[in-house]
């Protein structure tokens, strides 16, 4: 249906006011017109039939004005029949048309009825025969469908459409006027009230009614499944009610939903099996919700800096709203309730009732955490196919807290922001600079606050600027989701293109013009490969943002004032490396907060600023991403570290150690097992774990420290885990890639440096030390040819402090290789990290040095 061409009579009848006689007249006219048009209508010609619909709609509207529900129903029936004819096309058209004709002539009797009794009996509406439950449901469904079509096609000012909506809702109310439909009935009445308001006051916002419709539909779906609808719908009611109450009473934030919320079924709930239909929606919901919650965290932190910014509040509000909506549909009661309460709080803040302060932020973060837990449960459920009950996660307490908070905040500092914004005057550039200066002195003060305090600001301007700021942020955030699989494919093909291109190049050496073209192609291909690679990269910002949260929590807990600076958060990094970074970073930041930064009294005693600073820095350097975590705390005490290392037997106390070597000691396994040292030295909690975690991703960890000045951890990780810097070596007919990071040196040992040690095998001497030799061809039985060591090359490789010399035939060059899995079935072969496509298109195997050692050791 939608918007029908507005014919001339509509305009005429808009002037026909509430005079019922006039209305009756107009109905008469309309019905006459209808009959005429109907007779003329040709079932083969859909246009002639659609022409009837607007007329019907008008009659409908008029009937509604006179509260002639039964007549309106007849009109609707006709409408439906016409629609059926239109949709079904030629099927039984003649018969349907005949029926239609009968009903229309029946309709013609309306005016006569009206003239005799102007007052329709109210009892009529209640005299609906008690039909079986199912047919009621289907009727409700019908009405809802029609209503949604009407709302969808609603044009502002289209009074007849509104009339039709009212009629629909009336039908709904009639049908639902029963015990088991009480919720439905309530909402339908509220919807009707809203639509009436729309008619009377020219409100064109259909949002509330849409919400109402959505709610009605979900209730219906529950009823169809014979389940109890246990969700909170008061906000929708509020929304529908709002327009009416707005003038009479100020909005009450504490108008809570408790009284209408049906108590959830008591007792532990059973694990529920997920139907395949729901599965997909659930999976979508989980991934979306997880993403949403992450953005909430980041935005909350932003909001702390700028609590007056409505855009940020909106950004926080929206995800909660989405989660609430979807979880309602999916019967995830707890998620629904919690997100709803949080949303309420934010909504109040959004409308300027109060500012979100620290306590509120904490509460919202708590809510985010709880939601995450709940969603994790759902996620587990989607994996196992069975939704476990979430009884152990309590949301009621938190909800209570949020609600109380909302009330308290509203009472406490009722500062309608909107008003301030409107009342303030203009601001000069000097004023702004002054304010900025003040902010420099008091970094925890927000600029908005200062400006407001000083009465200097035009918050409008600020708001505008903030909006621009937000917009520029949005531009970066506008992204397309692409499955990683596709990206990997793209990378694969780009790599193949490079190979194909280089093969082509070799054949075109003789033809200068052709080789020029090929060179150009080569450039394009290289660019393409770079872009394909870069697509796997994401800014490190999200990881840094999580650290803000961490520092915030930690500084609160420890009572220290800690400020977190971030530099280079837009630095891009492979998405897999991000995962690798997270754990170590959390660990080190926790260390810095707990042990690095001193207590406030200590700091002021030393003449440092009371606020400790941790700086996170990210930048690219030589194919690596460097992350620095620097604090201005007390630094590492070398003496204490040496003492401890001596006690644990890591060193014997006679060595001359460089600073770096001393600091490395704290990353030795076994160093940090004892607790007391961490309290003295301030470092060392599981640093060995951090180190091995980073090394697993072919990264390095360095420490620099200055007593009393602070400590700097530097993590260096390869930009991507998909590419490895490797040396291609030839062994017999096979070629292997050895990761460059493992290689120490390659040399041709002189005969006198080669030994065979009894029981230990072959060794080569290098710088005075003996290194065991591994014959790759022996190990991988590619050949049994026994060659003497001094005829060949050895590559000295190191892994976990162990050194071995690999015997190879030749070095074939150094390059970057894309690591490829050998496929599921060949994944776990010891000593092989994966495959790499070599320059000639063949596959070379990448050695996993640690695995090779393990194999060689037996």
């Amino acid at each position, binding site marked *: 249906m939608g918007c029908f061409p507005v014919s001339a009579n509509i305009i005429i009848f808009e002037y026909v006011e509430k005079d019922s006689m006039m209305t009756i007249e107009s109905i008469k006219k309309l019905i006459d017109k209808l009959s005429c048009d109907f007779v003329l209508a040709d079932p083969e010609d859909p246009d002639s039939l659609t022409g009837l619909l607007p007329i019907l709609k008008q009659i409908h509207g008029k009937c509604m004005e006179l509260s002639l529900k039964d007549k309106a129903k007849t009109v609707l029936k006709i409408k439906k029949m016409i629609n059926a004819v239109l949709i079904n096309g030629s099927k039984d058209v003649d018969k349907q048309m005949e029926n239609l004709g009968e009903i229309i002539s029946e309709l013609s009797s309306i005016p006569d009825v009206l003239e005799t009794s102007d007052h329709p009996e109210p009892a009529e509406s209640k005299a609906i025969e008690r039909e079986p439950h199912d047919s009621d449901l289907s009727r409700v469904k019908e009405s809802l469908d029609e209503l949604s079509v009407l709302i969808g096609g609603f044009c502002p000012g289209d009074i007849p459409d509104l009339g039709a909506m009212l009629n629909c809702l009336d039908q709904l109310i009639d049908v639902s006027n029963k015990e088991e439909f009480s919720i439905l009935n309530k909402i339908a009445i509220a919807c009707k009230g809203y639509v009436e308001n729309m008619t009377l006051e020219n409100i064109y916002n259909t949002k509330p009614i849409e919400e109402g419709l959505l709610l009605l539909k979900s209730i219906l779906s529950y009823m169809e499944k014979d389940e109890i609808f246990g969700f909170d719908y008061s906000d929708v009611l509020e929304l529908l009610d709002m327009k009416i109450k707005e003038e009479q009473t100020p909005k009450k934030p504490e108008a809570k939903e408790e009284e209408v919320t049906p108590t959830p079924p008591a007792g532990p709930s059973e694990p529920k099996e997920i139907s395949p239909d729901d599965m997909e929606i659930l999976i979508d919901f989980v991934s979306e919700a997880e993403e949403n919650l992450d953005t909430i965290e980041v935005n909350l932190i932003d909001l702390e800096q700028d609590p007056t910014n409505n855009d940020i509040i909106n950004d926080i509000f929206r995800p909660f709203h989405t989660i609430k909506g979807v979880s309602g549909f999916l019967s995830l009661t707890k998620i629904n309730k919690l997100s709803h309460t949080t949303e309420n709080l934010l909504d109040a803040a959004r409308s300027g009732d109060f500012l979100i302060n620290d306590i509120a932020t904490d509460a919202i973060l708590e809510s985010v955490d709880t939601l995450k837990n709940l969603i994790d449960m759902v996620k587990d459920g989607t994996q196992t196919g069975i939704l476990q009950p979430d009884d152990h996660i309590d949301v009621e307490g938190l909800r209570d807290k949020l609600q109380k908070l909302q009330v308290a905040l509203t009472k406490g500092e009722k500062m309608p922001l909107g008003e301030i914004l409107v009342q303030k005057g203009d601001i000069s550039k000097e004023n702004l600079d002054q304010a900025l200066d003040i902010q420099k002195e008091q970094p925890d003060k927000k600029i908005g606050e200062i400006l407001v305090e000083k009465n200097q600001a035009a918050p409008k301007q600020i708001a505008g600027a903030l909006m621009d700021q937000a917009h520029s942020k949005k531009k970066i955030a506008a992204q397309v989701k692409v499955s990683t699989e596709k990206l990997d494919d793209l990378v694969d093909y780009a790599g193949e293109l490079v190979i194909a291109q280089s093969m082509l190049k070799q054949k075109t050496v003789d033809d200068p013009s052709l080789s020029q073209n090929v060179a150009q192609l080569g450039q394009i291909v290289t660019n393409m490969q770079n872009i394909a690679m870069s697509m796997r990269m994401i800014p490190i910002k999200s990881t840094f943002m999580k650290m803000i949260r961490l520092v915030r929590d930690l500084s609160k807990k420890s009572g220290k004032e800690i400020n977190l600076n971030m530099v280079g958060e837009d630095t891009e990094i492979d998405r897999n490396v991000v995962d690798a970074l997270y754990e170590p970073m959390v660990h080190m930041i926790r260390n810095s907060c707990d042990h690095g930064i001193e207590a406030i009294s200590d700091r002021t005693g030393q003449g440092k600023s009371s606020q400790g600073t941790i700086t996170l820095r990210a930048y690219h350097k030589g194919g690596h991403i460097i992350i620095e975590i620097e604090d201005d705390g007390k630094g590492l005490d070398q003496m204490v570290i040496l003492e401890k290392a001596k006690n644990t037997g890591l060193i014997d106390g006679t060595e001359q150690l460089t600073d770096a070597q001393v600091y490395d000691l704290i990353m030795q396994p076994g160093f940090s097992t004892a607790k007391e040292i961490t309290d003295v030295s301030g470092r060392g909690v599981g640093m060995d774990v951090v180190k091995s975690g980073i090394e697993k991703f072919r990264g390095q960890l360095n420490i620099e420290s200055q007593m009393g000045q602070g400590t700097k951890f530097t993590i260096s990780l390869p930009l991507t885990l998909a590419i490895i810097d490797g040396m291609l070596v030839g062994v017999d007919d096979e070629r292997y890639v050895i990761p460059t990071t493992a290689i120490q040196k390659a040399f041709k040992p002189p005969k006198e440096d080669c030994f065979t040690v009894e029981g230990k095998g072959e060794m080569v001497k290098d710088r005075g030390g003996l290194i065991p030799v591994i014959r790759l061809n022996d190990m991988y039985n590619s050949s049994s040819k026994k060659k003497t060591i001094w005829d060949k090359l050895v590559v000295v490789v190191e892994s976990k402090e162990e050194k071995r010399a690999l015997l190879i035939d030749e070095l074939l060059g150094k390059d970057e290789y894309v690591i490829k899995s*050998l*496929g599921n*079935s*060949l994944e776990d072969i010891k000593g092989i990290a994966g495959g790499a496509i070599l320059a000639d298109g063949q*596959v070379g195997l990448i050695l996993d040095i640690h695995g090779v050692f393990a194999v060689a050791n037996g």
Partner: protein
Amino acid sequence: MTKEKEVMGQAIKNMTIKTGKYLTFSLEEEEYGIGILKVKEIIGMMPITSVPRTPEFVKGVINLRGKVIPVMDLRLKFSMGEIPYTDRTCIIVVEIDSLDSTVLIGIVVDAVSEVLNISKDEIEEAPTFGSKLDTDYILGMAKMEGGVKILLDIDRVLSAKEIEALDKTA
């Protein structure tokens, strides 16, 4: 329990035996067939990088347009003698249903013959050679004019589990 399993397995097999197109190929003197829907593509022989510490029938890996896929020699898998590859030797790339996804695996065969339409009536159950011999990987025998063709359930022939298991014993 095992009996039930057997019955179930048989039932599943019966369901999988379907009238349809089969790609036939030769190994030694015999003709074999695999369901055409399992076949991704057929490529000529290309250099195979052998992978150490794998069972003998795993020839190694190849580069299939940027993807590294494992290649098995069906001759070795079926314990037939190895013969030098000719220009008739082909790699059939098949899609195997693994535990959680589908994987591509290449199988080396002596020569690819043709695509045949085989109706269900022409397919007979795999003969049982007593309980000791596992003929699970045979879908059935197709009696055609040219002789009997052995239809393989390629998922079972090359199940990832089996390769893993072999890897451990090797």
